[in-house]
């Protein structure tokens, strides 16, 4: 009988890149389902199209860089970037918009910096910001959620495809509606109660659609936390900072209100950002305390942009700005190493 001699390492590889990426992809499922239920097949079409573009771009650049194509395509990171980007883009955004965003995310955001693990910025957010800055009109085309057919009907599969491919001659032209964050931003004279009474689609807190979507992403994020894909520090930092800022500058329910803490937690890209973007292990901070600071910075900046900046939602910009700061944060939050009484932090004489 042959006894195979088994040598170390004995780890079974539960923390391989591919496994983790698949787990995160699985965790986006509640969000995908809720988005599809509320807005029709647009999100699903976006995800498929963006994934195809991402894989194509990744393969092309890897080939140019003479790296093993199959090995890197199988680790699912390109697909995850594409899925997160597709979830952030409006459903039914035209095909070329998704194409530009995804190609920028993969080629300029990731591969030109050296590929997996080398990118200083979150690739999905790079792609999102590029199209947000370049094509502001298309990026604000959010349809009304299911149940508000008076504003815009929920499209079926064929109509959705027509809308995305641009053959929408038979479809209504003005069919989108402003999100709650948009309305709050441009509001000058109405009180919060009057605003919400005038827009039935806003639901009770952050918009009928966006509440449900945010709660779904929260559920997915908690699943990942339970699976220990990431620690609680970055998401909690971001959510706590956002809540604290919105509490400090709430300003009641008058016409100059910036919205309640609950509104800010459940609208826009808050939960998607908190659990799927700021937890990026590559572009975020590394140490636990650093992650807390990183998340808090994203939360504060996101609120500052929402309340006083030029864009209705600021999560993407906040993440990119904090990505720039992540190396510095890491530098000053190095943990104590075993055998040393004090941690080594900051600049020393002779450095």
């Amino acid at each position, binding site marked *: 009988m042959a006894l195979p001699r088994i040598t170390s390492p004995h780890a079974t590889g539960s923390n391989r890149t591919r496994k983790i990426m698949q787990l995160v992809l699985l965790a986006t499922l509640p969000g995908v389902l809720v988005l599809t239920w509320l807005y029709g097949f647009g999100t699903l079409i976006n995800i498929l199209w963006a994934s195809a573009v991402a894989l194509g771009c990744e393969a092309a650049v890897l080939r140019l860089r003479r790296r093993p194509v199959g090995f890197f395509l199988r680790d699912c990171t390109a697909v995850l970037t594409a899925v997160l980007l597709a979830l952030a883009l409006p459903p039914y955004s035209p095909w070329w918009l998704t194409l*530009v965003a995804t190609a920028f995310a993969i080629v*300029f955001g990731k591969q030109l910096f050296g590929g997996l693990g080398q990118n200083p910025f979150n690739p999905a957010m790079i792609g999102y910001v*590029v199209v947000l*800055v*370049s*094509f502001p009109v*298309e990026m604000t085309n959010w349809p009304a959620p299911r149940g508000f057919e008076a504003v815009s009907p929920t499209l079926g599969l064929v109509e959705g495809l027509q809308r995305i491919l641009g053959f929408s001659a038979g479809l209504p032209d003005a069919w989108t509606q402003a999100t709650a964050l948009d309305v709050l931003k441009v509001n000058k004279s109405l009180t919060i109660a009057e605003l919400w009474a005038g827009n039935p689609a806003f639901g009770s807190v952050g918009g009928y659609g966006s509440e449900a979507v945010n709660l779904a992403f929260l559920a997915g994020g908690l699943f990942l936390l339970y699976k220990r894909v990431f620690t609680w520090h970055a998401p909690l930092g971001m959510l706590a900072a956002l809540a604290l800022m919105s509490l400090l500058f709430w300003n009641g329910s008058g016409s100059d209100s910036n919205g309640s803490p609950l509104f800010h937690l459940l609208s826009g890209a808050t939960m998607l950002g908190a659990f799927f973007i700021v937890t990026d292990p590559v572009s975020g901070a590394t140490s636990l305390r650093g992650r807390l600071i990183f998340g808090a910075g994203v939360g504060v900046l996101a609120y500052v942009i929402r309340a006083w900046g030029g864009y209705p939602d600021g999560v993407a910009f906040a993440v990119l700005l904090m990505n720039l700061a992540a190396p510095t944060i890491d530098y000053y939050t190095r943990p104590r190493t075993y055998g040393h009484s004090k941690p080594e932090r900051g600049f020393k004489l002779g450095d």
Partner: protein
Amino acid sequence: MSQSYREIAVNGLWKNNPGLVQLLGLCPLLGTSNSTVNALGLGLATALVLTCSNAAVSLIRGVTQSAVRLPAFVMIIAALTTCIELLMQAFTYELYQILGIFIPLITTNCIILGRADAFAARHGVARSAFDGLMMGAGFGLVLVTLGAIRELLGSGTLLANMHLLFGPIAEGWRIEVFGSDYKGFLLAILPPGAFLVLGLLIAAKNILDERAEARAQALAPAPEAVPSRRVRVTGVIE
């Protein structure tokens, strides 16, 4: 040891290009390259200042003390820039307004002071003027290429508003490349677009250089086999 005119031209236009290799004058390069007409206007102005300043600096190179040479060069360059500014005010007033601060800033352009100190202060008038012309042309070519690419991506046109520089005959030069319903990739016109396109241009130049070098190596005769280098030999080691 003075360079031949051919070498000076190759240096300015390609091998030592101020925009792509020395990366000098990045501020106007990135700031005014959002359309072809802006880029061409500033490129011409810079090339003119550079040629004249190189000639002038070369003329006074024997009489300036080395301690005060930089202030003297800057005075010359500033005077020439003022001339250009007044000329543009007189003949292309709209373009002068569009380019704004970038015209007086030609004074502080590192290319001009750099060429004055590195070349014109050590060479004769004719060579210095030619070097200024070639460096200016190299900078201008990069500027116009950048401007054309950014304008093409950003608004889908080429040669728009050329009448600002060339007068009424250029009214009809505007070409709509992608048709009138092109959305316009706004990022290309914004500052990040300048950095991205410049980076891609530098990459393209490096690729071309590498290919040329590989081709030259392939064409060159193979190096002769190295004779055996044994330690103990009786004859003469080649």
